[in-house]
């Protein structure tokens, strides 16, 4: 569980009474007292352990091993989550699928962070025409239902990248496509948040001072203003991971997501409607893992929102 928690405590010192805390330390203390957030962190830690430790217990070869005589078997001691339509072990597949689902969540949020921060920062900082062009564009993309946009993008880019090998594992080229399109269709809210932060921050005295000292615009944007907008960005990015994982699940459920041979929790749900009656375990376990992951991230994200809220920071 510690893995994720540590990222919020760069200087993990024992808390001494009456010590002066940095804002980050204060936030961490607040987060620790938020039992829901801690619960979310524990849950998330357990999930990460599941997909990492699990991959040492089961080889990828085992996860891909099919045996038609074992097809569509319900949960048993040998296959705790049952088997899929060609007799593969679903438990092992959720482990490798989970790695990809989480990877998609994190990587696509990274992309939406870059785009969203750039668009928001430039729009908010420069204002005027830059602002109205960028924001009109943002608004236009926001007006298209996100799943519709994802479907179009997935169809558009779905076959453009070939399969590739990484660390001795073979991945479908569609993995990169899905990461890109989820990232490129989810930056709009972030851009708005960053823009409004920039709008208020750029009027501050220290920025005026920087201008007077002849500091270049780009330097002001990235060295002086941006670091002061990290709190809302962290919150939005955390919750964004949950949304991205759900997006992957939906687009894969619709058959336009990551393709074989790469398993994800989402594409394990594909064609599940065929098995509602006869083999509910096929969709139940991957679905449940998505639910738990999204739930944990939402708990943490909500806790972070509280913890990083400057209005309550001094409490």
């Amino acid at each position, binding site marked *: 569980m510690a893995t994720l928690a540590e990222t919020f405590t760069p200087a993990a010192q024992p808390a001494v009474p009456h010590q002066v805390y940095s804002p980050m330390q204060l936030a961490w203390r607040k987060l620790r007292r938020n039992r829901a957030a801690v619960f979310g962190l524990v849950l998330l830690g357990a999930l990460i352990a599941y997909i990492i430790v699990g991959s040492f217990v089961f080889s990828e070869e085992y996860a891909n091993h099919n045996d038609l005589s074992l097809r569509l078997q319900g949960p048993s001691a040998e296959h705790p989550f049952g088997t899929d339509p060609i007799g593969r072990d679903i438990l092992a597949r959720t482990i490798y699928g989970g790695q990809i689902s989480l990877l998609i969540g994190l990587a696509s949020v990274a992309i939406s962070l870059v785009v969203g921060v750039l668009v928001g920062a430039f729009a908010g900082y420069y204002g005027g025409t830059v602002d109205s062009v960028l924001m009109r564009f943002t608004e236009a993309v926001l007006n298209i239902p996100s799943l519709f946009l994802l*479907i179009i993008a997935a169809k558009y880019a779905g076959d453009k990248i070939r399969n590739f090998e990484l660390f001795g594992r073979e991945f479908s080229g569609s993995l990169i496509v899905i990461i890109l399109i989820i990232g490129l269709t989810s930056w709009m809210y972030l851009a708005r948040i960053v823009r409004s932060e920039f709008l208020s921050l750029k009027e501050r005295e220290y920025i005026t001072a920087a201008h007077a000292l002849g500091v270049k615009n780009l330097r002001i944007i990235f060295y002086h203003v941006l670091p002061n907008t990290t709190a809302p960005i962290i919150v939005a990015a955390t919750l964004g991971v949950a949304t991205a994982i759900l997006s992957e699940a939906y687009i894969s459920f619709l058959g336009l997501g990551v393709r074989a041979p790469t398993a994800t929790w989402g594409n394990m749900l594909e064609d599940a409607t065929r098995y509602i009656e006869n083999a509910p375990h096929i969709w139940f376990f991957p679905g449940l893992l998505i639910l738990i992951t999204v739930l944990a991230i939402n708990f943490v994200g909500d806790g972070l929102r509280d913890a990083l809220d400057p209005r309550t920071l001094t409490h």
Partner: protein
Amino acid sequence: MTCLTQRQAIGAQVMGRFIIRRVLQAIPLLFVISVIVFVLIMNMGDPLTSFAGRNGLVKGKDRERLIRQLGLDQPIYVQYLVWLVGNDWMKIDSDGDGVAESNGTRLGVLRGDLGTSVVTRQPVLQMIWERLPNTLILMLTSEAVIVVFALGLGITSALKQYSLYDNVFTGLSFVGYSMPVPLLALGLIYIFGVYLKRAGLPYFPTVGMFEPSVGKTWEQVVWHLVLPVATLSIISIAAYSRFIRSNMLEVIGQDYIRTARAKGLANRTITLKHALKNAALPIVTLVGLDLGFLLAGALVTETIFSWPGMGRLFYDHALKSDLPVLMGVLMLISISVVFFQLLTDITYTFLDPRIRYQ
């Protein structure tokens, strides 16, 4: 009295200008949307697959001819122009001899011609028109259920803050909010469709809008609505009620509510009259912004329950790269989103006198 009417008159004038400005702003917005979407859809797949037989192939000369006849050989900006303003004013080459000899027949979107589906050969407008009522039945019912339950749950849990009820509610709302639609929908089908049926109990239908043997009666539609509406509602109630709860908590903590209590007003009166009225304001925004997307339907839910709505229409035709249908659906949704945003803003200013349109 006179003073008031004058203020109202000025208000109406300002409001009028506000609306006009917003509408004018919407035009470039819709233009940008249409260009983005058009470019993406143009490159997303092969619409001619719809002309193929069972093995998916359009052979030889037919392919070249259809590409020419459907204008797919034109540069993308020409195709966009034709989509927008039609081609009845320009000469096109229909026999493939390289000489443009006759006028086209399309009028373009600006003149109300959304084009003809490549797949069904039907006017797009007509296809959308047929699906629209189905989507509205599903979405409006869900929206009503969502608002009623979210208000009820949100308010009661706010009034009983920190109680066991509140905690259970908050936990459940998080679960609902994090629920992937396929898991919820398939779970509901399994429990209320499959399991109840196996147990010999009355069960809910899980497919389509009505039983084929009975026909499309309203009883049938209501019966078939239960599970898809439950799917859509459970997830949104969770999000909405959390929002309502936090708004209520904020309002309850404010001075005027405390004053009301001090005056000795009954708790019930305070809740319903004062707190609710103010807490409900943000809900208007939320619902208003949602309404625009109503037309989009709920793609995943419609797919799972085989509900013949707009979301499914879009999905089915996206798989066949049917550009005219996709453009038609998306433009209609965009227009409705813009429209409801405007309506929401206006409603909001009526409900909350503190808001001024700038």
